[in-house]
């Protein structure tokens, strides 16, 4: 069995950045395993622009953003396998994969970065009643068909879920001649970025039904219509509020889940909140030498932060391989009032470097204060005009702000 220093599972934005981070820190024996026909991951079907504003200070399309990283991988001469499916990872870091060139292959890694991204929640995940006709798609699948394969999956479309992919697809299908009748969102607020509400819905006068969900699907062979209803505060449909739309397609943009199956086989422990791995401040999972970054760790809304996280993870995987990693006792990081989740879940004590924490709020917060408590004492507070669950927030703490950390760091929201 071959041994490789660092194997990266997934060649999307997280995997490519992790590879670059490790390479720049001196690791040369790197292998990226990618199941698609090219490196780039989901960015390749995200043909809209808006990527790279933080990282490159310019606005790029998804494919161009991916191409920049792919060029770096080529320039560094980092090895990768395409059309390659990883079947298993063990806790002692033996990876089994298969492709048409090497067949069924095992490779031993000294360190692994999990960068498999996420997948879409389906109709089954949200239990929509009604018939089971053709014409119900996840928005991302419809996006790949349209933008890469060249198929428009329907002519009269209704979209459930106001996540960014749903909004982007509402515009995209309108541009390609389909009629988008509306977008329903079960929450009282949109789950997409505000700019996408403007440029994808309002620009094309597509109605957004907040506090609504799909309560029936009609049609036996093909979708012939759907019914939406308003929901109450417990998200239960309110009788008498039904509206029917005649359409041939229902797109679902109802959330993303980290694709963690492979990590679980290797004993990587998951957070019930993020559905991704539990990690410390260098994104190392509870299994030594197995790291995680990008959407398989927690679902991001901005790719630039995925790249940053990948670079950070790759750099630290390199330190691990080079025995340069500073090991220390770890303190817990937890989500207090108003915080949905915070990452990392553990942070090394007596750190000599700054740590960036990522978090999401539980619901819309206006004019609220973010408090950072170290062992019960507030060490930092930041006033925020608005925080919404659709936008991942970040806060960086300096090494000296973490000096006194003994057992627990808590992030919480104080509202007036």
């Amino acid at each position, binding site marked *: 069995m071959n041994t490789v220093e660092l194997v990266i599972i997934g060649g999307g934005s997280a995997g490519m950045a992790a590879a670059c981070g490790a390479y720049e820190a001196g690791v040369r024996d790197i292998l990226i395993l990618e199941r698609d026909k090219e490196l780039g991951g989901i960015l390749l079907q995200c043909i809209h622009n808006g990527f790279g504003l933080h990282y490159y200070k310019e606005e790029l399309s998804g494919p161009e953003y991916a191409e920049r990283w792919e060029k770096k991988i080529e320039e560094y001469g980092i090895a990768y396998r395409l059309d390659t499916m990883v079947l298993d990872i063990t806790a002692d870091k033996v990876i089994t994969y298969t492709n048409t060139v090497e067949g069924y292959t095992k490779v031993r890694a000294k360190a692994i970065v999990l960068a498999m991204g996420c997948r879409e929640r389906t109709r089954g995940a949200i239990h929509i009643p009604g018939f089971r006709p053709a014409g119900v798609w996840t928005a991302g699948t419809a996006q790949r068909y349209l933008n890469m394969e060249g198929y428009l999956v329907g002519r009269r479309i209704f979209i459930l879920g106001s996540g960014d992919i749903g909004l982007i697809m509402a515009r995209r299908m309108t541009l390609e001649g389909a009629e988008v009748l509306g977008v329903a969102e079960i929450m009282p607020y949109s789950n997409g970025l505000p700019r996408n509400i403007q*440029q994808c819905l309002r620009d094309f006068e597509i109605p957004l039904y907040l506090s609504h969900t799909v309560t029936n699907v009609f049609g036996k062979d093909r979708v012939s219509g759907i019914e939406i209803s308003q929901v109450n505060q417990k998200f239960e449909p309110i009788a008498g509020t039904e509206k029917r739309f005649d359409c041939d397609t229902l797109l679902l943009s109802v959330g993303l889940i980290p694709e963690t199956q492979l990590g679980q086989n290797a004993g990587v422990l998951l957070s019930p909140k993020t559905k991704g791995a539990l990690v410390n401040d260098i994104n190392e999972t509870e299994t030594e030498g197995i790291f995680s970054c990008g959407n398989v760790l927690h679902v991001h*809304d901005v790719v630039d932060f995925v790249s940053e996280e990948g670079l950070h993870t790759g750099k630290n995987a390199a330190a691990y391989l080079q025995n340069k990693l500073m090991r220390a006792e770890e303190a817990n990081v937890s989500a207090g009032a108003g915080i949905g989740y915070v990452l990392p879940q553990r942070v090394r004590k007596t750190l000599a470097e700054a740590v960036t924490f990522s978090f999401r709020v539980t619901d819309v917060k206006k004019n609220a204060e973010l408090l950072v408590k170290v062992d019960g004492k507030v060490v930092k507070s930041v006033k925020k005009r608005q925080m919404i669950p659709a936008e991942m927030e970040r806060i960086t703490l300096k090494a000296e702000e973490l000096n006194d950390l003994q057992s627990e760091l808590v992030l919480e929201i104080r509202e007036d």
Partner: protein
Amino acid sequence: MEKKFICIVCPMGCELTAETDKQGNLTAVAGNRCKRGESYAEQECKTPMRMLTSTVRIEKALYQRLPVITSASIPKDMIFQVMSEIDRVKIEAPVELRQIIIKNVCGLSADIIASRSMAEVHQ
């Protein structure tokens, strides 16, 4: 007149309130957290401009579609006309990143350019 819209310049998504005079010129703007929001509001009140992304048919490539983007923003009300120009195009790989696919589309002083490179694939 008062107009409310969301700034699309960056993912922050500031909710802007713009005041305009009778000619539609911006007189005051509130809600923006940076300078770019101000110039965006001014443009949005005069002539709303958008970047447009789509795809064109491509042959001899790994996929059937090549993603394209406008080289500069175009007036919002020209989007569907530009889309019908884009629909007419069929090209062959190889294509370079930012290669011009349609020059000066609809006379708007913006080009339609490839938003990725695509190598030639021999089937």
